[in-house]
């Protein structure tokens, strides 16, 4: 038992002799929770996850004996937790509309019974290793929850409960560990959030994460198990893009971490997710989704913890052999929380007030993404997508620049595009993906062998048009040759007919890889046909007046992903549209 010596914002100095770094503490009459971040003799410095107003020196403080940990087991899916895994729905029921301090509600429901089916391989007397599957619980209709042996427990399985309904606290089995102590098994276990969960080995990421967003999948793909960042100024569309990914991507589990952002955005997710269907399984999206929320008005220390809570939950599902996507909105707020605590600790700021370890913390965090072979020999992945909110939209600031070094896929959002309401405002020149090779293989095998070539052609067209646009801005469009004018026009067609994609248009919101490829190749076909004509001497002016150009710009919102046949039929007619002009100019040529 210890006591409070001093309160300074979210930091409290405690007299607490036998604590260790990272230990959870409960402090004061209100029972506020925090963690030890510094020690000096008999005193310890703790950061609290809740507002410290009203705490007094002299009030008691106790060490809880464990680091910040999360509960992992059935009951996670569909829930919304705060930054230290308190279940917000249950907290709301218990303490009302406002976040009361010191509430202690267990993360997972204690009274709910789950139907457990033991794994037939697990028999009393056989060896059991950390990460082994004990059995399964059908948690939602689409998700079979594999009940895992806690990672560090190895030994002999003494007994395992038969098929039946259990609460998470009932004893499910017993293990005799190698040191001869007996460990009880439950439907859930705890894991410290700042320690990555172990796995057998890293695997190569191979399959693209399909998000249904054309500029992402077709131009700057991300792989399952990859790391991506979405930097952009305020209002550029980071949250919308992450929500789109959470909605449509072909992962099995989505962890949505709202870190220091708006309360209404989480409400939005909570309201639309149950109503939308997973395009890949047809089940309500909420069944595969889990939210972690520390909104901008909630205490800043819990904000720092929230991304670790999120990534640990992600790793837990990965360890069940699932493909998990975690979106974090916004990693900048997490970095700012780090900065704030560092400032109070008097640590030396290096750039814009950030401590020197900003880069290494970011790297260690993103390192927890990846595709792995789990302890039980399954393949699972964590794909990590972080939004970055650079002050003033300046990408040279510390968080953006460090992040850029770490990630493989960079979806840079542009203010100019967003201002003209060209969404998603992903800048096609600034963005990059280090996964083109692997993605190309997948597209070639699953969609079309020409994907890589077509993609490159479209990108060339876009960068050529950028050059031309510069000329136009100086001297006007009349200075361009017909070929150049047509190039400019075709680039406009790609931008409006392919890159631009409305999240709020029912049909356009999601595009399957087949639809993406059909549009890409269709629009390029128009470009090529037109170019042929221009080379025969047709003036670009005549081509630009073709009704086909404005029609093709509407294709994306006229054909759903199920209705590609009609789209393909239109594309097949493209040469026909040019035929009359073609005949005319072939004759004169």
């Amino acid at each position, binding site marked *: 038992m210890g006591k409070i*010596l001093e*309160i*300074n*914002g979210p930091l409290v*100095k405690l007299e607490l002799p036998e604590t260790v770094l990272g230990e959870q503490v409960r402090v004061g009459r209100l029972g506020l929770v925090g963690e030890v971040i510094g020690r000096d003799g008999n005193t310890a410095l703790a950061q609290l996850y809740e507002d410290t*107003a*009203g*705490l*007094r*020196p*002299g009030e008691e403080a106790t060490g809880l004996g464990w680091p910040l940990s999360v509960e992992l087991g059935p009951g996670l899916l569909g829930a919304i937790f705060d930054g230290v895994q308190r279940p*917000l729905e249950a*907290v*709301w029921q218990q303490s*009302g*509309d*406002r*976040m009361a301090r010191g509430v202690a509600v267990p993360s997972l429901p204690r009274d709910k019974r789950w139907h457990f089916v033991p794994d037939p391989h697990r028999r009393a007397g056989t060896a059991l290793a950390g990460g082994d599957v004990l059995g399964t619980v059908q948690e939602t209709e689409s998700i079979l929850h594999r009940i895992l042996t806690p990672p560090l427990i190895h030994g002999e399985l003494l007994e395992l409960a038969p098929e039946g309904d259990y609460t998470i606290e009932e004893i499910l089995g017993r293990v005799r560990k190698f040191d001869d102590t007996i460990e009880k098994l439950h439907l859930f276990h705890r894991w410290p959030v700042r320690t990555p969960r172990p796995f057998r080995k890293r695997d190569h990421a191979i399959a693209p994460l399909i998000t249904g967003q054309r500029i992402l999948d077709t131009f700057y793909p991300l792989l399952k198990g990859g790391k991506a960042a979405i930097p952009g*100024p*305020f*209002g550029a569309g980071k949250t919308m893009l992450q929500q789109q990914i959470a909605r449509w991507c072909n992962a099995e589990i989505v962890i949505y971490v*709202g870190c*220091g952002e*708006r*309360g*209404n955005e*989480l*409400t*939005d997710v*909570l*309201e639309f997710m149950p109503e939308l269907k997973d395009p890949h399984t047809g089940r309500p999206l909420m069944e595969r989704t889990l939210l972690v*929320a520390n909104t*901008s*008005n909630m205490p*800043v220390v819990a904000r720092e913890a929230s991304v670790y809570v999120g990534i640990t939950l992600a790793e837990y599902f990965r360890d069940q052999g699932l493909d998990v996507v975690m979106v974090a909105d916004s990693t900048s*707020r997490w970095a*700012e929380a780090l*900065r*704030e605590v560092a400032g109070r600790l008097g640590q030396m700021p290096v750039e*814009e*007030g950030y401590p020197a370890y900003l880069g290494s913390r970011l790297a260690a965090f993103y390192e927890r993404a990846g595709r792995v072979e789990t302890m039980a020999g399954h393949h699972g992945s964590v794909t990590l997508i972080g939004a970055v*909110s650079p*002050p*003033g939209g*300046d990408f040279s600031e510390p968080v953006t620049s460090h992040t850029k070094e770490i990630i493989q896929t960079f979806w840079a959002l542009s203010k100019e595009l967003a*201002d*003209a*309401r060209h969404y998603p405002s992903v800048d096609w020149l600034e963005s990059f993906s280090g996964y083109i090779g692997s993605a190309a293989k997948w597209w070639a095998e699953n969609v079309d062998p020409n994907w890589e070539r077509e993609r490159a052609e479209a990108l060339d067209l876009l960068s050529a048009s950028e050059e031309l646009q510069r000329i*136009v*801005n*100086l001297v*006007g*469009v*009349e200075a361009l040759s017909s070929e150049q004018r047509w190039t400019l026009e075709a680039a406009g067609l790609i931008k*409006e007919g392919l890159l631009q994609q*409305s999240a709020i248009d029912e049909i356009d919101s999601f595009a399957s890889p087949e639809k993406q490829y059909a549009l890409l190749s269709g629009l390029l076909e128009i470009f090529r046909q037109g170019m042929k004509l221009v080379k025969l001497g047709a003036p670009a002016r005549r081509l630009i*007046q073709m009704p086909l150009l*404005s029609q093709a*710009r*509407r294709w994306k919102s006229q054909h759903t992903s199920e209705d590609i046949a009609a789209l393909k039929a239109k594309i097949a007619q493209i040469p026909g549209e040019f035929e009359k002009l073609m005949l005319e100019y072939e004759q004169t040529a």
Partner: protein
Amino acid sequence: MKNIEFRTATSAQGGLIVMGGVPGVAAGSRVQLRDHAGRLRSGLVIRSADDAVLVEVFEGTDELDLERTWVRFLDEPFKLPVSRDILGRIFNGAGLPRDGRPPIISADRRDVNGEPLNPAARAYPREFIQTGISAIDGMNSLTRGQKLPIFSGGGLPHNRVAAQIVRQAKLLGEAASEFVVVFAAFGASHADARFFEESFEESGVLNKVVMFLNLADEPVIERLLTPRAALTAAEYLAFDLDYHVLVVMTDMTAYAEALREVAVLRGDVPARKGYPGYLYSDLAEIYERAGRIKNRRGSITMIPVLSMPSDDITHPIPDLTGYITEGQIVLGRELSNQGVYPPVTVLPSLSRLMKDGVGKNFTREDHPHVASQLFASYAKALEVRGLAAIIGAEELSDADRRYLEFANAFEHKFIGQGEDEDRSVFETLNLAWDLLSMLPADALIRVSEEELAKYHKGQATVAAA
């Protein structure tokens, strides 16, 4: 402890005093100081240990004689007494009357810091508010429960725009406004405060307004309390008394500057332009108090006014605000100089809640597409205007010349309107179609073909002209 006066100050500097030998003082508690002349000052405990308590003094520590300074720890945070009687009243930044009438007496006294809403308790705002201003209703609409700031600059008519919104705001189909208004001014001039008072008086809503004023020549630290006191009143009106509350706050820049001043005194590590790293969280504590709550009838809609230092939208104050609020209405000098009122620069303006509050079941089915089309066409028109400035308008193609005409008409007829002109959203949409009809139909990709057939009155293609 409340009733004991301590005379144990050991040092004072730059607005902070250190008190020795006062054990067990609660963090964040309010403090009352009595100086040698018997004058009262107030403060806040910002750091507490048994041997030293650090107190921030709102009125500053100038002329404090430590030997003759008596300090009482009030053992509670700043609180605002609330009751129905606050309507029609004027308070200072700390919630004391400044209208010469008696103070509010109520057993219900609330911590002005509020408590964060549980995200699970929020209800998503969806109800369209008609402000009667086309640039807002048509393209950046306001929703009940939204926080939508006005980004402005010195000399621009942000006060008039805010007052016009307050006068005209109502739900679709409502005859008159249902809103009560909480108005907070901090660091504002007497003239600004006067302007709003008169405007409320003229529209006869004074008895539905609560005002919190901390003017430019009043204590800076009290400025940090003003928005909090105002929002405490707003929360009470909205979530206890079921009112729909419109909160107008001006000027957030003065607030942030006050925060910086205090942060410097405390020795906090600066992040950008001397503003403390926690400016974001601090502003969020204020802005996030807007919203709706499940199972509650009332709502808080927030319109903070903010002047951008040197008209720079990337300055930390507008920047961090934009990162927290649900969009922004940006006023521009160029339009204003051309005599356009309200001078709303639409491209950098945004309403994030518009996508969920307009269209088929809310306003009219073509609304979202029309808005998107106006943005796209106007963005294109501005490009053309830039080009015309270089090569001359005569050199423009036919198609481009139409864009030029469109831009002018859009700015003067659509954005520009009278200060008393209250356009219905349908008038706004019809006006939008009049303008879009200046452009050929095949250039309007963001509206559907059906909508074109129904509303577009111009030619199909440029060639048809």
